[in-house]
């Protein structure tokens, strides 16, 4: 599935009510941000609460339900806070916000390390049913987001094992029966591909 079809799917599924919600959200968030720029705490708190839910849904639908999504949402909230002085009330709020969301989501995914905690979290299930985790988890489209799903199987496996399951490069390479160098190339290309898909994606 390419980026155009992803964008097309999201626009096709927008009903009239959704369009109305979209417009009213847009106006309300823009007004709340202008108020926040003036220092109104309550409006800012409301804005962050509302957008955090939208951002969480957005990330889950694109990348799947994973532990790193919550960290990513919080990073994005901090980024929105740091960038709030750049919001121009003459421009629309969503493009401003989603430019930050897309950028931080890819940054966050890129920074996911094969760290000990993640490994420990997943080791048990891998040990319990290695065969299932090799194929079942990777092929379960319900758990993956649609952007991850849009990757080719090679890239999807590489990114799922290293960035989401938290395996080390050596472990993931062994699991896929490829060299570590080849795995690094796949991960790098997968992130590049995800970046393009996210940039072309219509929230």
């Amino acid at each position, binding site marked *: 599935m390419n980026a155009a079809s992803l964008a097309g799917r999201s626009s096709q599924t927008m009903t009239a009510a959704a369009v109305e919600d979209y417009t009213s959200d847009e106006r309300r968030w823009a007004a709340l941000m202008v108020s*926040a*720029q*003036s*220092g*109104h*705490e*309550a409006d*800012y*708190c409301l804005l*962050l*609460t509302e957008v*955090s*839910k939208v951002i969480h849904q957005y990330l889950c639908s694109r990348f799947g339900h994973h532990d790193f999504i*919550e960290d990513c*949402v*919080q990073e994005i*909230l*901090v*980024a929105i*806070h*740091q*960038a*709030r*002085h*750049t*919001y*121009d*009330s003459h*421009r629309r709020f969503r*493009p*401003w*916000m*989603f*430019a*930050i969301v897309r*950028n931080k989501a890819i940054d966050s995914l890129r*920074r996911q390390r094969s760290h000990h905690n993640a490994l420990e979290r997943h080791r048990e299930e891998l040990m319990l049913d290695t065969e299932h985790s090799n194929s079942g988890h990777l092929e379960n489209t319900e758990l993956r987001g649609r952007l991850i799903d849009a990757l080719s199987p090679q890239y999807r496996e590489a990114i799922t094992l290293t960035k989401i399951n938290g395996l080390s490069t050596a472990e993931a390479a062994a699991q896929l029966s490829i060299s570590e160098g080849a795995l690094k190339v796949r991960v790098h290309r997968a992130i590049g591909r995800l970046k393009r898909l996210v*940039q072309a994606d219509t929230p």
Partner: protein
Amino acid sequence: MNSDRDDLIGALSAGLQPVKPAPRIDRIALLWFAGSALYVIAVTQLLGPIRSNALAQLAGEPRFLLETLSGVLAIAVTSLVVFRAGIPGALTRRFAAFGAVLMLVWLSNYIVGLVSPALDPSMLGKRPHCVWETFIYALPPLAVGFVLVRRLYPLQPVQTAMCIGLVAGMMPALYMQIACMYGAGHILLLHILPGLLVALVGAATAWICRPRQGET
């Protein structure tokens, strides 16, 4: 909702300070471009004579005039690209591509000039240290642009700083074709190349100044 997230939102909202309204980014970009261009012209004129027949060539040689104007346009549009990159969502891919194409079109004039120059190559007006002048004159505009853009929120800070360096470097490089001798090879090697090096200085500066992981 996640309690950690609630805590974070509470912490971000508590004691919220007012911020200045968003700047008019195109105006800032054009002011920086105009200020930097004036500075480059002034410092180049002050520190050495310009080629004696340069203005007459601008008036009498349409291709040379077009080459110079295409450089001015490319640098001005790239200035807008750079500053728009400092505001999330303000820079469209199309506009960024437009700036890149203008820059390539301008620089390709000198490649074409190796075979078919806009002016007859001449040593007249040669400045002995033009390579250093181009590099050094570009540093103050780079510093000012870097500080201005960092006050915004560039999502790709290293690439943005590299573009600031490119624009800052190309300003003296362009003016040197009036202030120094004209020859496509000389321009590419001793004016454009040091200008491109300023782009690397910009990228390196942004890399060094980038926020470390975990910093907020």
